[in-house]
């Protein structure tokens, strides 16, 4: 199969080609690697390409297929966000601190996908330690948007979204702490899902904010997301917050429907559509998407999330607080970067961390340290936790009158590189629609729903009640059966 076909084929189509002998895993891996290399300079979607390991894994997958009885993902090329630990392959978190770090173990997600026979071709770019909404805060340089390389890919899982959008791989892993799967998926015109907190083990994911971090997948369709998500769900005793329930076969549920959404109540939170910074093109596209859902049988209902605005301040207290503690281990003592010259222990800590971390990471460590300090804990951290509970309660109430919430994924389309990087608050405000699902632990998905005047993709977000991943995927799948926004290709 040619690289061009790889570019346009869905995961399911590739799986069919493999099982019918029309292509081989090794050919797919070669095509994916070739395309990744040829686009690397323009997109910078990858931090590390593992060509040899990928070819070996692909050959092994082909070998297994000859023995029969392989899973659907066997031989499918994919890429991992460089926040997932990979045994023997450097895992950087896009930080100077871990630029040379080689983990001795695989993350749960990596392990599961490898067991399913998927072939990882490398590690994708991201914002350093997953902190950012543009993928501009990377020690390895920004990732660029395949639709316009002068623009951001979104963040933090920008490399994964760009790699899928650019047709390098049909599916890539991501993590979503405040929108890091959904927002770059929206910016790059692909589909991404963040499952419920606890659905997917965090074991082996370099922590940013533990109570919010959740692994997800980015692909070209809801159906492909469903296939990949099932492979990474399930209980993992190594993560105490992992849910003790088996993986669900989301794809089977999708295959069993007639594409109608009769009776589905889609809630449109009025506060979301009243956001000041909501771009007119984005509003128009998301409202049009709502009408498409209506035409599929869904009923649109008005809902309220009264504390929607408070999600950003709550998030930007809780996430930095946890981050300030999670990142304390990068002290130069045992592994990772250590400053070359220092006078004493404190000086080593200071210089190592000053040189090893980028500005955005330092900013969040400072904020987090501050909000946990004696005398400020109650006013900030505790207050933010109370807000978090109230916000979760708002979602719960909204789901009394609807089955899913429909909203924009982000208020704007991809902005130009450097446009917001001097103004952190502007960047934080981009997370207004995505953060709520993280604070409440809810599953949420972003799928393409149109383009703005500049030809940049727009994302439509669906948020579901706890554990309603299948419902989310069913709705998005029905939408994608009816529309072709997700089939549009960037002009690379």
């Amino acid at each position, binding site marked *: 199969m040619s690289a061009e076909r790889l570019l346009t084929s869905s995961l399911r189509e590739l799986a069919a080609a493999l099982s019918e002998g029309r292509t081989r895993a090794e050919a797919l891996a070669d095509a994916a690697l070739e395309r990744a290399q040829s686009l690397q300079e323009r997109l910078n979607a990858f931090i590390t390409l593992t060509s040899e390991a990928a070819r070996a894994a692909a050959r092994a997958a082909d070998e297994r297929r000859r023995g029969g009885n392989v899973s659907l993902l066997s031989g499918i090329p994919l890429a991992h966000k460089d926040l997932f630990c990979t045994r023997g392959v450097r895992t950087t978190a896009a930080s100077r601190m871990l630029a040379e770090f080689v983990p001795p173990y695989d993350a749960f997600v990596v392990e599961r996908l490898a067991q399913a026979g998927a072939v990882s071709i490398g590690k994708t770019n991201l914002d350093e330690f997953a902190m950012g909404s543009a993928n501009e805060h990377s020690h390895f340089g920004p990732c660029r948007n395949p639709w316009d390389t002068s623009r951001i890919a979104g963040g933090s899982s920008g490399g994964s979204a760009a790699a899928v959008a650019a047709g390098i791989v049909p599916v890539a892993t991501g993590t979503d702490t405040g929108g890091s799967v959904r927002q770059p998926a929206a910016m790059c015109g692909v589909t991404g899902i963040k499952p419920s907190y606890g659905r997917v083990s965090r074991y082996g994911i370099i922590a940013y904010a533990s109570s919010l971090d959740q692994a997800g997948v980015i692909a070209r369709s809801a159906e492909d997301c469903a296939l990949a998500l099932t492979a990474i769900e399930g209980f993992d005793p190594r993560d*105490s917050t992992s849910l003790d329930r088996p993986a669900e076969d989301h794809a089977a549920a999708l295959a069993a429907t007639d594409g109608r959404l009769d009776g589905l109540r889609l809630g449109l939170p009025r506060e979301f559509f009243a956001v000041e910074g909501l771009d007119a093109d984005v509003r128009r596209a998301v409202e049009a998407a709502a009408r498409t859902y209506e035409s599929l049988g869904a009923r649109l209902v008005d809902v309220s999330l009264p504390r929607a605005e408070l999600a950003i301040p709550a998030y930007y207290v809780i996430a930095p607080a946890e981050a300030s503690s999670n990142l304390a281990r990068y002290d130069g003592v045992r592994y990772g970067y250590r400053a070359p010259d220092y006078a004493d222990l404190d000086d080593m800590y200071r210089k190592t961390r000053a040189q090893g971390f980028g500005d955005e990471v330092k900013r969040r460590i400072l904020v987090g340290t501050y909000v946990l300090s004696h005398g400020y804990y109650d006013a900030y951290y505790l207050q933010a936790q109370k807000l978090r509970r109230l916000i979760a309660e708002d979602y719960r109430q909204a789901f009394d009158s609807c089955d899913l919430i429909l909203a924009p994924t982000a208020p704007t389309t991809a902005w130009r590189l450097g446009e917001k990087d001097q103004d952190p608050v502007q960047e934080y405000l981009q997370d207004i629609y995505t953060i709520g699902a993280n604070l409440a632990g809810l599953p949420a998905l972003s799928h393409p729903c149109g383009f703005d005047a500049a030809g940049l993709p727009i994302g439509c977000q669906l948020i579901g009640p706890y554990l309603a991943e299948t419902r989310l995927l069913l709705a998005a799948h029905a939408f994608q059966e009816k529309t072709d926004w997700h089939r549009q290709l960037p002009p690379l």
Partner: protein
Amino acid sequence: MNRTDWETVIGLEIHAQLTTRSKIFSGASTAFGAEPNRQACAIDVALPGTLPVLNRGAVERAIRLGLAIEAEIAERSVFARKNYFYPDLPKGYQISQYELPVVKNGTLTIQVGEGESAYEKTVRITRAHLEEDAGKSLHEDFHGMTGIDLNRAGTPLLEIVSEPDMRSAEEAVAYARALHTLVRWIGVCDGNMQEGSFRIDANVSVRPKGETRLGTRREIKNLNSFRFLQQAIDYEVRWQIETLEEGGTVQQATVLFDPERGETRVMRTKEDAHDYRYFPDPDLLPLVIDRAWIEEIRANLPELPQALRRRLVDEHGLTRYDANLLTASKELADYYLAAVAAAGQAIAKPCANWILGELAAKLNRAELDIGESPVRPEHIAALVQRVHDGTISHAGAKKVFEALWTGEGTDVDAIIEAQGLKQVSDESALEALVDAAIAGNPKSVEEFRAGKEKALNALVGQVMKASRGAANPQRVTELLRRKLTA
């Protein structure tokens, strides 16, 4: 300034390493003494992406201790992160329990002093919480550098915090000893103080007698023997009183005890105290303990030292002092109880005497633990029985004991036989000897008849001598008395 009478106020924080085979949040071994960093897995080294998983065994031990001190076991407790930078603290935070500990409001009754002045006291235990130990910084082995050994990192600890209820170093030592006995008794901690399994921090302050407010305390860190605990408190109290009497003030501080100089010295003052930025650890769910589990653990608890002590006094007729000594460790108590079980409760007291006397002295000299004793509890029982039924004399019993100790013999009756220690108790066999003694010692006979009781001893001695020690002295005494007063 008038001379003031001072009162000492002491509270102890004790870190007990728990006896789980693996660490509190990882599967690495907790065994002591391995090559540096051989027992530190990815979680202990805090590699990126690793997560803690709570060891159920550590919780079980915390519950056991909680029940043994009659404390409340929290149905829900929370692990928090205590944030600070130190090279032997891999994550940059210690996982500990802060606002909601697993055990709270317990008590421990201690015996203070010996003899007439001995008294009982109940010390309140505020809380006991689970946490992980840090690694070790090795400053000596590396020239100009510090080595880090993470074998200890993640070893489960129970930090047991008392109220400031102790009023002297003696009470503090008695409390620490009683807790040390208890944790080993119920098997939650091996109590090895040289290896750091049981470490004591003492909060010490003084105040004028009659004052109800607490004085400013200084915390003596990391005392690893009862002797150092005693010395450190004695020094600290003297220093604080002197300072106050000279018109100075005591600053709140953390101090270290230097055993070589017998002094405490300041490690850090309140000004450079850390802000630990505690917050609930988002990687761990709240610890929820169901009642059924607590009851299951309660049902499997051994009889506790305090209850056993009471039983030994009330039912075995021992003195409180002996009961205390016998309950100093579970092994010793078990040894004693096994001996009594074989000998019968009626002769419990001589069993106790043998164990605390002859046996304890031998063990001490040989530096053996009770578990290593070559003399078994059944031996003690048989020995005591043979003395009790008159088969052997006390002197003979000592010979039997010696044979048991050296391994010369393993059966009490066989030793008695082999060494010819059987006493002659038969009157017909003794009568001739008694008559001979009376006939040969008219002076003693005269004195006895004149009312001098002591003269009888000389006659008994004569008979014993004539029998080469084989005569039963009690029977001889009876016989003599009967004949002389007839």
